[in-house]
């Protein structure tokens, strides 16, 4: 098996992990943003407000989702190149723009939509390349 050939089913695993990572990251960030907007105190170098914020169910759920996202990204890096994972997971910017608009009613400017469009197109282009180009035996 050459470096560019992968086991059958690996592409499906990579795609599943990508979707899971982007979804967990988006949900985690949304819950964190939602929870922090409800939090009355301003953050500073003092660690106490951070710990208090963690007691908010939305913030706690957001942190848990972001930890799961980190582990999923690690698993993804065991199967795919870093130069593949980086641009493809940037699709999260597109998801964040949609979720910010839909759930947090944030204003998304034309320039930001253009940027998200470029990210989406670039991620699709990288996504069409082979996800792993390194030989596992050489690792």
């Amino acid at each position, binding site marked *: 098996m050459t470096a560019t050939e992968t086991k059958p089913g*690996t592409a499906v695993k990579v795609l599943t992990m990508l979707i899971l990572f982007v979804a967990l990251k988006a949900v985690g960030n949304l819950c964190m943003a939602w929870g922090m907007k409800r939090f009355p105190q301003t953050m500073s170098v003092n660690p106490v407000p951070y710990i208090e914020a963690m007691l908010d169910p939305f913030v706690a759920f957001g942190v848990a989702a972001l930890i799961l996202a980190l582990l999923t990204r690690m698993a993804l*890096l065991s199967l795919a190149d870093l130069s593949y994972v980086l641009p493809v997971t940037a699709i999260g910017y597109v998801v964040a723009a949609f979720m910010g608009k839909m759930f947090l009613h944030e204003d998304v400017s034309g320039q930001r939509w253009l940027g998200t469009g470029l990210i989406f197109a670039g991620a699709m282009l990288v*996504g069409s390349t082979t996800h792993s180009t390194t030989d596992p035996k050489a690792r």
Partner: protein
Amino acid sequence: MKWVLVGVMVAATVLSDLLQSYEMKRAGEQSVSAGGLMRLLGMIVRRRFLILAIACMAVSFFSFMALVQAEPLSFAVPASAASFVLETILAKFVLRERIGARRVAGALMVLCGVVLVGG
């Protein structure tokens, strides 16, 4: 001061991702089942490069927080995208990944997109 923070943030992000990628490639195929996630948590504790990667991630996170306190997000987000370029170059030379024209073109499109999103 802002450029020091940008430098620290970019360096920490790049180092964290390179270490993670290197260590995960060595670890072989991992899964995201309940058992797989527990195994990954165990690996973070046992493998020193992964511990260092998480420490770098924390440095990057707090540098970003400090940066957005002093500078607008429209500066911080595109500035953080500098790590994207460095990581792609280092993935080729350090991790020995084969980066073709399509991957370079896609990565540049994403980079422009990130700069526009932040701008």
